[in-house]
């Protein structure tokens, strides 16, 4: 693989991801508790409840404690004059090159959780693919969006 890109995304990304994951994991626990009550009520075998609790604990650890940090460590990006270079992925490390002349449009977006931390994501679309750089500092994201948009000029020869 190539040398990783220089820039990291905002350190607050980890917090934002942890909160997002907590919501999903919370729903998972809720389902497990309701299922547990039903199982208890009908006197079905107890091992199902135990298995569910074990799975939930493992998920909680993985998705809230371990993965956001790992994911952040892997996330890198760099924007050159002529191309955008992105790296991400925990188990599968992925490095993507997007030439500027192929970029069709750039968006920024911000959900409620990202907003709380003053973060925003940048989405880069080509005619065939889309690429996202998640959770940058707001100003950084807007500046990046404007810069890419300036640098991206559609090739005359293009479709």
């Amino acid at each position: 693989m190539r040398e990783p890109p220089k820039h990291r995304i905002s350190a607050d990304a980890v917090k934002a991801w942890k909160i997002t994951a907590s919501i999903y994991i919370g729903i998972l626990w809720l389902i497990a508790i309701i299922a547990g009550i039903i199982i208890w009520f009908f006197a079905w075998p107890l091992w199902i409840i135990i298995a569910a609790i074990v799975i939930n604990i493992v998920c909680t650890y993985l998705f809230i404690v371990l993965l956001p940090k790992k994911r952040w460590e892997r996330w890198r990006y760099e924007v050159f004059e002529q191309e955008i270079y992105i790296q991400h992925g925990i188990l599968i490390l992925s490095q993507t090159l997007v030439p500027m002349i192929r970029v069709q449009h750039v968006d920024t977006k911000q959900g409620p959780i990202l907003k709380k931390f003053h973060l925003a994501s940048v989405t880069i679309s080509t005619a065939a693919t889309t690429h996202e750089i998640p959770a940058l500092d707001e100003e950084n994201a807007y500046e990046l969006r404007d810069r890419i948009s300036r640098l991206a000029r559609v090739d005359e020869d293009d479709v």
Partner: protein
Amino acid sequence: MSKVRRLHPAAILFQFFKLLKGWVIYLLIGLITIKGEGLIYYSLLVLLFIFVLLTISILKWYRFTYQIGEDEFRIEYGIFIRKKRYISKHRIQSIDLSANPIHQIFHLVKVEIETAGSGTDTEASLQAVKLAEGEKIRERFKGSSIQEEQPKQKPASKNITNKDLLLAGATSGSTGVILALLAAVFSEIEQIIPDHFYDQTVAWLIGLSVTYIILLAAAVLIFIWILGIVGTVLKYWNFTITKTENELVITRGLLVKKHATIPLKRIQAVGIKESIIRQPLGYVAVFAEVAGSSLDNGEDFSTLLFPIMKKGEVKRFLQHFLPDYTIPEERLTTIPKRGIKYYLFRGSVLFFILAGGSMFFIPKYSWLFILLLVISVYFGYLRSKDCGFHIKGERVVIQFRVLSKMTVLLYKKRIQSMENKQHFLQRKEQLATVKISIIAREGSANYKLKELDEADTNILSDWYSFQNNR
């Protein structure tokens, strides 16, 4: 600005049949199931219904107008809500003419106007106009705005021979598709067939001996195979590809005549496809990925440039029609030996589980699953052998196999993005996967070269990257 025109009245018929098609099966079911006095009322109702459909068709025809402007093509349509669509001449990418048998009787054509939009719908389609009118529209709004000179020498052109056409049919492998179609048709008809008839047939089938059933199955398969040949022959009848200055023109078809124009500058990639049946015979199909064309909707994901030819002819063919896309015949950089096991694993893991499960649960049939397992391992091996690439200047040749072996030629400037991937097992063995994305008919196409040597994937991304100093 020319005057406002309507379609040929035959368009009413097409509209009517299109509307009727959706309802006909229910109407028929009603006719069969309703008995006695009810039938008379029902028939009246059906007649009324048909009358309504006909009225709608006539109104639609009456309210659909088109106009050929100086620099744009205008259509207006809609019975109650008027819709207007103006298509600028410069936006028009291609104009396809086609004629089904009814068109041919009246000397009409269907005109489909395409713009660069990524959607699969045609921008404007005229159901039926006079042939001369259709050709006039085509001349008027032809592809690019560049004035086209009459080519001095005869334009390059290639026709399919009858022998090749038959061979294409025999090796098309469309048997599976037809089986599925028959099953679909049967599931519709099944509702109409009386129950006792159905039961008798099943009883009769069960009563037959194994030999008969095998013979019957063989007969059905051969019948389907012949259907496949007939289908291919009808579809690719008189397949002709012609090159004009900046377009390729393809005409084909016996019952439904298709006429398609491919502007050269919209071609994203050119490739050859060797299906598992054709490969041993040395035959291939040549295809192109074209941005935003909707010809052959849903039939195939790329545009066929020629349905069948000897592998040895491809070079000459491309030199003739697409000299920029002549595929260099050089040795490809293939995957290292240590990558093969991943292919074998991916290809066979599902069948491995199935085979194991079948031995446990239905030992009687485990031979079938073991056979499938062997085939899948073999395919995995073939895939690993057929994966590779070769860089030549601004072009790259890539080769891979899913079922058919594909060899694709791409220009650097046509590649929308390139991604190198590596999972933790690959990292230990210095292997990596490359994903190349380009524009294709359905928006995008991805080509994956899995388990290349990591150093080779770096060569590819260095070639693609503008940052050479890494």
